[in-house]
């Protein structure tokens, strides 16, 4: 298979050099500070979550998008400085989805790969025919070469497009998710074929979704996240739990695959864990409570609020968002009806947040209810002493609430309610949290709470 390839340009792969690349599409920066090289005859895999910029990077290499900054060169020349035909004698592309909704037969589609090698008026040469036939055979598409392309399956179609790229016979081959719609068997077969091309000297850059396959077949991996390179190097140095967590937001274990000796990745679960709780009740006052409410609403969590004094900024924000809010007169005693209403809210909520709660003679009974709430998060931005108008008894009650609650800052509110909701909201953890729960028994909450 390799012996007669010496005359073909693919026999000596080209060097791809990308330095300090930035690409914006429609004003949005898709890639920034990307520097990647691929040596001749190297198989470089691009991994990363959806939207990380893998496809855009491939398109930048193929010249389909122009860099806003930085350069992409192939064998030292910018593709844009070459003629269309010369460029496509250098780089072949297998896009993620090709619209082949018309009835060319498979062979005709593969023949189109020879377009850059042919001159306008001459019939196809022996060389053209050989390349087409070989591409059909190598991709095992020869068996249905005469069928219309719109009548073959999605996986077969993907192999046809790969065959077209192979017929193009270029030193560089770019593949965007070449195994995406293939079954396991054909995934392996396709990547084995690509590996063969690499052994023949082709330089390959491929976006590959499946990390294990990427690890198994690529010489080097480039992990992309949010449009920049997170890590690049041999698979075993890129596929680490740490890189995976920052790229994909997953906790994963990486072990050696006993069969192939390459890293095997097992994703455990998302760092974000369970979905956020559905319903949160917020009691509290002032900008802290308002801020908490805003963050919850932004996170698309159903929120109830109260009791909150009319005219309080928290009441204002709750009203703006159209939340179910229990408003009470400032400094007035909590009526029995209001208290039962609050209890209903507390029961209905998955998590309750007490945010800079002001305690007066009128609402200290509320603290008793809060102390019994199983999933409680307390946010203390202002010292409790400043908020306590009900003396020592209120202070003791509040302290009891704090002990069974998760203490959080406004910024960490989502994380805190998430943990509490998942049942991790034990006081043990609170104690371990050095930044927030410091002087447990030394001084009552008055002393601390300047954490924000």
């Amino acid at each position, binding site marked *: 298979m390799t012996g007669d390839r010496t005359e073909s340009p693919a026999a000596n792969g080209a060097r791809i050099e990308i330095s300090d690349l930035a690409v914006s599409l429609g004003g949005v920066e898709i890639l920034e500070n990307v520097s990647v090289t691929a040596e001749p005859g190297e198989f470089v895999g691009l991994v990363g979550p959806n939207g990380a910029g893998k496809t855009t990077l491939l398109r930048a290499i193929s010249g389909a998008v122009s860099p806003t900054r930085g350069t992409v060169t192939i064998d030292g020349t910018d593709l844009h400085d070459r003629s269309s035909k010369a460029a496509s004698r250098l780089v072949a592309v297998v896009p993620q989805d090709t619209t082949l909704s018309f009835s060319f037969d498979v062979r005709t589609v593969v023949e189109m790969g020879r377009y850059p090698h042919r001159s306008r008026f001459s*019939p196809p040469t022996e060389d053209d025919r050989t390349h087409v036939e070989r591409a059909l055979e190598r991709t095992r598409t020869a068996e249905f070469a005469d069928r219309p392309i719109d009548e073959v399956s999605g996986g077969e179609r993907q192999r046809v497009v790969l065959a077209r790229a192979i017929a193009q016979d270029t030193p560089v081959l770019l593949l965007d998710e070449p195994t995406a719609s293939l079954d396991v068997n054909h995934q392996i077969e396709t990547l084995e074929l690509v590996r063969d091309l690499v052994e023949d000297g082709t330089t390959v850059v491929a976006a590959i979704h499946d990390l294990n396959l990427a690890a198994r077949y690529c010489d080097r991996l480039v992990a992309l996240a949010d449009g920049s390179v997170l890590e690049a190097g041999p698979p075993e140095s890129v596929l680490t739990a740490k890189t995976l967590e920052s790229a994909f937001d997953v906790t994963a274990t990486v072990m050696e695959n006993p069969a192939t000796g390459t890293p095997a990745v097992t994703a455990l679960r998302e760092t974000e864990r369970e979905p956020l709780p559905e319903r949160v009740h917020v009691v509290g006052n002032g900008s802290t409570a308002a801020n908490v409410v805003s963050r919850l609403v932004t996170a698309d969590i159903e929120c109830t609020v109260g009791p909150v004094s009319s005219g309080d900024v928290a009441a204002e924000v709750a009203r703006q968002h159209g939340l179910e809010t229990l408003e009470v007169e400032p400094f007035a005693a909590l009526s029995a009806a209001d208290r039962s209403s609050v209890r209903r809210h507390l029961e209905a909520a998955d998590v309750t947040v007490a945010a800079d709660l002001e305690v007066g003679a009128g609402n200290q009974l509320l603290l008793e209810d809060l102390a019994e709430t199983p999933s409680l998060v307390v946010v203390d931005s202002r010292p409790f002493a400043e908020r306590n108008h009900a003396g020592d008894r209120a202070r003791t009650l509040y302290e009891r609430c704090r002990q069974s609650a998760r203490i959080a800052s406004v910024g960490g509110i989502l994380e805190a309610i998430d943990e509490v909701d998942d049942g991790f909201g034990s006081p043990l953890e609170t104690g371990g949290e050095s930044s927030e729960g410091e002087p447990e028994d030394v001084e009552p909450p008055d002393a601390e709470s300047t954490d924000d």
Partner: protein
Amino acid sequence: MSNRGRIVSWSLGLSVLLVAVVVASAALGPVRIDPVTVSKAMANLAGAGTYDVPATHQTIVADVRLPRILLAATVGFALAAAGTVMQGFFRNPLADPSIIGVSSGAAVGAVAAIAFPALVPIGSIHLPAFVGAIATAFLVYAIATEGGRTPVATLLLAGVAVQAFLGAVISYMLVHSGESLREAVVWMMGHLHRSNWADVGFALPVTLVGVLVLGAYTREMNVLLLGEEDAQHLGVNVERTKLLLLAIASIVTAAGVAVAGIIGFVGLVVPHMMRLIVGPDHRILLPTSALAGASFLVVADTVARVGAFGIPIVPVGIVTAFVGAPFFLYLLTSREVHAL
């Protein structure tokens, strides 16, 4: 390659059909002339012999019928070829040769020349029609081009908008055209009844050269069907090729429309029909569509001219629409027209 064989045999077959249709058409008319005599008269005309043909028959064939028949063939050839290119270009089976406003532009030029001869003192209708057509195509292209790129969808919409605008201009001119209203309307319906050799001398060379150039770009048309980004990856200079295809197809259409008015459905239905028969590969689709379009319009014009099947003599555009529209509906309902 067998593909080459297919192209040659289909083209030859359709060429033979075209010659047969031309001879048959020339034999028909108020004076019936037998096909052998017609052939002899044609040979005399072509200087390929000096056969003995009655002088009246020679005159009827060579001076009366043949210019009209050849013009019909030329226009059919041009419209079907341009329609094939536009359908491929827009990847839309509903595209026709005038999709970017060529016909409307020609109509503006022609109606202006007919209705306001003082304003357009050229004494010719062809020239203002041709110029109007080309100018419109250029205008639509310029509107749709931004930053060196001409998105196909923008081109389509710009074409629709410009056509609507020109439609208003035409209506305005028609309202104020006075006695020349009928002539203007007949022009717009598509007509071949006043054809002469000068018309053929204008339209035929433009069409032949244009279609030959298009023929040299059939592989690009195929590759463009894969989508513009794929075409670029395969080495097609996409924007330059699009400009060239659009320009040549518009010139070819303009040549046909300028001499024959707006003859609908030839450029829409014929490429469709041929695509169903020979497939989407432009290397075979373009020549076969062009040849089939030529035969189709000769037959349609013969019906228009002779008044067959009890149909009175009418402008040919009525015949093509009368036959073409139902046929198109038949295609829509019975075949997979989405498969370009």
